[in-house]
């Protein structure tokens, strides 16, 4: 082993869900790759990071992030988005294609990867558009885009509403084993709505979006999965009915999975009171009934991933009348503490919680991340699980501040983030 390229993370509580590991151990890293987890023999000049009292886990994988570049650099860039990720303990992000130009062509995929190599501090995996221009009409080049480095396909932000097009997308993707990620909202039911339909929307006089807008789309898509055999994943699932449908499909053995976002399992549409545009996103915050269903889905293992739908915005897009405000909230820097509320609340164990943010999404995307298996890239997060702190959006490392969690008291603080054995974030640095 060569000098200077050896690193030992010593004395932490190593939690590696993929390997069923949760014990005090050391992690030996060489040349950016995991060598051994346990009590390895350590070369004399190995650099040591003491992790006593900290959890040492695989770096988090967020399969749903908007980096905004190319095209919307005033909202966020690959550099600022990945900086945010690193600060949140996230070492791999899947980047949604609703950029300008849209990631619907191998050349745009290449551009995103090039930018990420130069300016990114964590791993970036592009998601390609299902349809050209996100218009819902013609399929993008799945094969060529996969070769260029795409890990999945989605028209996120828009829904593939046309049933025939969705059928073909699932069918064609099956030939490549590709994953289709649907932003499931029936546009004709959304129809100008800007928050969840319910007591709060009625009081505030805001046009509501019925929760069925999501369930109906998921129901339809599951029938298409039955028809086509394509791999189908529901993005930011928010509706109790949709979760039930996913559970039913899984029970039938269909290749159907879903992710949930921290804001959906920790907040309800009451957060919109006062017309807070930082509580506006698509799909919208739902009722307590839906929130409880998501918690149950997490506990029962129906949900495969926690994903942030990190959506940075410039202040101008949010500092307007509620209905005119852009959809979306940032989430990378609050992902871990909000998700740890699931552990303190007894919904899932720490290992289950981390699995939802590491090995499970990595497996869905088919990337060699999210595990501490020897031979895999040394992406790690070191965090203090008990440290109490208050979320302060003014101190975010990314460029945007649009979070509904500002001021929330949480536990669990990221101390260090490593990508391929290199420290990319260190608290207080």
């Amino acid at each position, binding site marked *: 082993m060569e000098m200077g390229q050896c690193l030992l993370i010593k004395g932490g509580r190593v939690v590696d869900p993929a390997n069923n590991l949760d014990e005090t151990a050391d992690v030996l890293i060489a040349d950016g790759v995991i060598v051994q987890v346990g009590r390895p023999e350590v070369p004399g000049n190995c650099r040591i990071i003491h992790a006593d009292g900290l959890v040492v886990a695989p770096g988090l994988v967020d399969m749903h992030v908007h980096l905004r570049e190319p095209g919307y650099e005033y909202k966020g860039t690959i550099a600022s988005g990945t900086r945010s990720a690193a600060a949140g303990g996230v070492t791999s992000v899947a980047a949604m294609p609703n950029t300008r130009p849209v990631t619907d062509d191998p050349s745009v995929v290449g551009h995103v990867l090039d930018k990420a190599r130069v300016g990114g501090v964590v791993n970036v995996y592009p998601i390609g558009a299902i349809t050209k221009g996100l218009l819902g009409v013609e399929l993008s080049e799945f094969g060529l885009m996969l070769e260029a480095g795409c890990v999945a396909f989605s028209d996120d932000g828009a829904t593939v509403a046309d049933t025939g097009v969705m059928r073909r997308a699932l069918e064609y993707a099956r030939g490549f084993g590709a994953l289709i990620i649907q932003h499931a909202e029936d546009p004709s039911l959304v129809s100008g709505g800007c928050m969840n339909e319910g007591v709060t929307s009625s009081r505030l*006089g805001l046009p509501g979006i019925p929760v069925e807008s999501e369930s109906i789309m998921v129901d339809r898509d599951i029938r298409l999965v039955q028809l086509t055999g394509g791999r189908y994943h529901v993005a930011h699932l928010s509706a109790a009915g949709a979760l039930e449908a996913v559970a039913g499909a899984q029970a039938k053995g269909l290749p159907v999975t879903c992710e949930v976002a921290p804001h959906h399992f920790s907040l309800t549409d009451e957060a919109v009171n006062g017309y807070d545009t930082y509580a506006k996103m698509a799909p919208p915050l739902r009722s307590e009934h839906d929130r409880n269903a998501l918690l149950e889905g997490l506990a029962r293992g129906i949900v495969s991933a926690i994903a942030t739908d990190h959506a940075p915005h410039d202040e*101008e897009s949010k*500092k307007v009348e*509620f*209905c*005119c405000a852009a959809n979306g909230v940032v989430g990378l820097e609050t992902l871990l503490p909000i998700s740890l509320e699931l552990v303190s609340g007894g919904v899932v164990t720490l290992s289950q919680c981390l699995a939802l943010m590491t090995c499970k999404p990595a497996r869905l995307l088919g990337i060699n991340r999210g595990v501490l298996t020897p031979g895999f890239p040394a992406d790690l997060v070191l965090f203090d699980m008990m440290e109490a702190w208050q979320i302060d959006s003014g101190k975010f490392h990314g460029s945007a501040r649009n979070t509904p969690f500002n001021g929330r008291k949480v536990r669990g603080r990221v101390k260090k983030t490593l990508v391929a054995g290199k420290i990319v974030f260190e608290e207080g640095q």
Partner: protein
Amino acid sequence: MGAGISYSRVGTMKSNLWNRKHLLSMRDIGRGEILSILETAASFREVNHRDIKKVPTLRGKTIINLFYENSTRTRTSFELAGKRMSADVINMSVASSSVKKGETLIDTLATLQAMNPDVVVVRHSESGAQEFLARNLNAAIINAGDGRHAHPTQALLDILTIHDHLPIMGREDFQGLKVAICGDVLHSRVARSNAQGLATMGAEVRFVGPPTLIPAKVEEAFNVKVYHQMDEGIQGVDVVMMLRLQQERMAKAYIPSIREYFHYWGLTRKRLALAADTAIVMHPGPMNRGVEIASEVADDLERSVILEQVANGLAIRMAVLYRLCTPQSRS
């Protein structure tokens, strides 16, 4: 009716209970505050019947009417209210909001604020626009209607109008008074503000209309009863408040036709007979004759108090402007 009316019979007289910088909605306006405004309004009524309709109360005060939505009656009412109290009143109509291109709402108001008006009266097509402005800027704001959300001065003038008729209904106060708010409740800020204000006063509020025009979970949101059959909904009520139906509602499949709408939810003389004998008919205007209300009812001065509402609107707006322009009048 008139300036000499006593408000003590509907509650303890607390003329100085108003201590707000803005008037944004009826949501947490208390009974005492409402009575305080009614009382102030009553004292201003007499001014509107003088030969020279002007008092110096707000001399040197500046009021800006900032209207992002077409309005004739509300704008005129606020304008006249300010002028009759000798305030300087400026009207600004802005064709487009931030939805379209152009200056943002907040920049427009910041510009006006820099000229130091005492009150800015704002009407806007988006729900919550005034709350958004109040949160981000310093100017005192009166909400003259925001989207589907609130129209507090309309609710206050309606409460004043009902109040005037309590003796005819043989009532002491609002307790147990039955009010049916009928028609396009979904899109109505008038319905929402009235439901809140009337409930605060002790009335029993009903929303009546086709299911497509009633907001979701409205019983829980507003403490009202919902009726889809008009005949059932107005049975025995003391007040029938009709709402304007925008003719374009057919385009989005809310209702099939005006003919069918009028047949089932239009207020006719025959239908009105189902309400209490002393029941009054109200409408915030502008009316669509033959759509939500028959002319035979609208023009029946025995029952229709629609023009009294307009007169009371002026008095209420004088009262609200007075309270917001003169901090010393607040407690």
